[in-house]
């Protein structure tokens, strides 16, 4: 099913093999396999309810896996706790601007460093404030008082400050102004150039593909296609996935 045989430069960082996930009895991910290489920008595309978030949650250890192997830089993390997974360098930004509303913006950011520095690592704050000036202005404000989009930016900042080897972004564009979406994706690209691998789930297909090195297509809990952005765009698979019935 893989289309391209493109050269994917670096070593394999995240390797997901034959992942199955179920909510209660209902299985929603049926044997998904995909890879993220070091320093690579990978996009996961698919319609609503295709199971993308479910896969990501399973990778981060937030929900149990029914079957399958997940390795990070060669180490098996399939059974690890979320804490250990974060420590191994996988940080996920959840969809739907989930921040800790009662805490200040700065405390939210510090919590992003908690897994590695249990007393909080203030030295990284400045970098985040430079990337997202709107957060700097509001560093003492309670996060719940931010607007929806500002909360989303904070959530991304919270992920970035953890300085992961693999940053997972689940629909970061939700509720963001077009111009901010571009900025966030640019930031992700820059981080990627700096060596951080990115795994992005996005509904805005074109914008996502513009930044991506590699792309997977999902449908009803399966990976139904993969390739470089140009390969994907030149095939009709993308159309079929979004209109349904790509089997």
């Amino acid at each position, binding site marked *: 099913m893989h289309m391209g045989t493109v050269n994917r430069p670096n070593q394999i960082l995240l390797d997901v093999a034959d992942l199955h996930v179920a909510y209660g009895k209902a299985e929603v991910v049926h044997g998904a396999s995909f890879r993220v290489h070091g320093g690579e920008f990978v996009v996961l595309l698919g319609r609503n309810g295709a199971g993308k978030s479910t896969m990501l949650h399973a990778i981060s250890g937030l929900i149990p896996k029914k079957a399958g192997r997940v390795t990070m830089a060669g180490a098996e993390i399939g059974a690890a706790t979320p804490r250990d997974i974060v420590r191994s360098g996988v940080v996920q930004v959840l969809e739907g601007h989930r921040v800790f509303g009662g805490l200040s913006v700065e405390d939210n950011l510090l919590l992003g460093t908690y897994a590695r520095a249990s007393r909080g690592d203030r030295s990284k704050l400045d970098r985040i404030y430079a990337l997202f000036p*709107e957060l700097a202005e509001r560093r003492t404000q309670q996060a719940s008082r931010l607007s929806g989009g500002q909360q989303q930016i904070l959530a991304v900042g919270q992920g970035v400050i953890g300085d992961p080897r693999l940053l997972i972004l689940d629909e970061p564009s939700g509720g963001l*102004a077009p111009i901010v979406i571009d900025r966030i994706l640019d930031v992700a690209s820059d981080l990627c150039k700096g060596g951080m691998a990115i795994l992005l789930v996005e509904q805005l297909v074109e914008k996502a593909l513009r930044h991506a090195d590699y792309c997977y297509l999902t449908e009803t809990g399966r990976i139904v296609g993969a390739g470089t952005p140009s390969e994907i765009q030149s095939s009709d698979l993308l159309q079929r996935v*979004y209109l349904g019935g790509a089997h």
Partner: protein
Amino acid sequence: MSTLVADTVSKRFGGVTALSNVSLELREGEIHGLIGPNGSGKTTLLNLLTGYYQVDEGDIRLDGEPLARSPVQQRPRVGIARTFQKPRLLGSLSVLDNAMLGGWCETRAGFLETALALPRARREERALRDRAEELLHGVGLGYAIHRRASLLDHAEQRFLEIARGLVMRARFILLDEPAGGLTEGEIEHLASIVTALRDAGIGVLLVEHHTDFVFSVCDRVTTLNLGRMIKHATPAEVRSDPEVIRVYLGA
């Protein structure tokens, strides 16, 4: 013509000025877009119009009648409905019951009348049920009428919230990011619904970041930035306005 007006309203939270001197006129039979960068005060304006916040300065008027001081629960009575960024439904009730809840303000039967099931209570119930069923079929939820609302997926919840607002006989319906998390196909459905509402004479306020959607359905668009209005015009004009491009749309 009926109008819902925010007249030079200002709203501050502590040191933050969320809105300053913003005016907006929502007319019946019109779709009015409200866009702007994150934190520019769109939700705040919507909250002022629906009574969740009180204005610091300026006034809210419905058909010329001042409304600024009336509480949230009063707005549905005068025909103002809203939806939420995160849908607020009653998960344990059926879709139909959720929609019928919108008819609260019209129900005249009091507690005792209801408890004793007097004729008026029963009559109102029947009428409301018919109306809610029609509207649910109209927004496309006819197949799920007896389903528990907690079993709906995201898009269905959005549409149910709209149906609830319509059961309310809203003259104005204010939608907070209704297209968020919807697929292209669902957005098309949404567009057709919103357009139908306009054609039926309802005034729709659309707070949205999905700009293609906004520009395609809106009659007029207001743009906010940092709590101020920077452009108010037709979609085409707003879209090509350099200031709007600079702060919001991007290149």
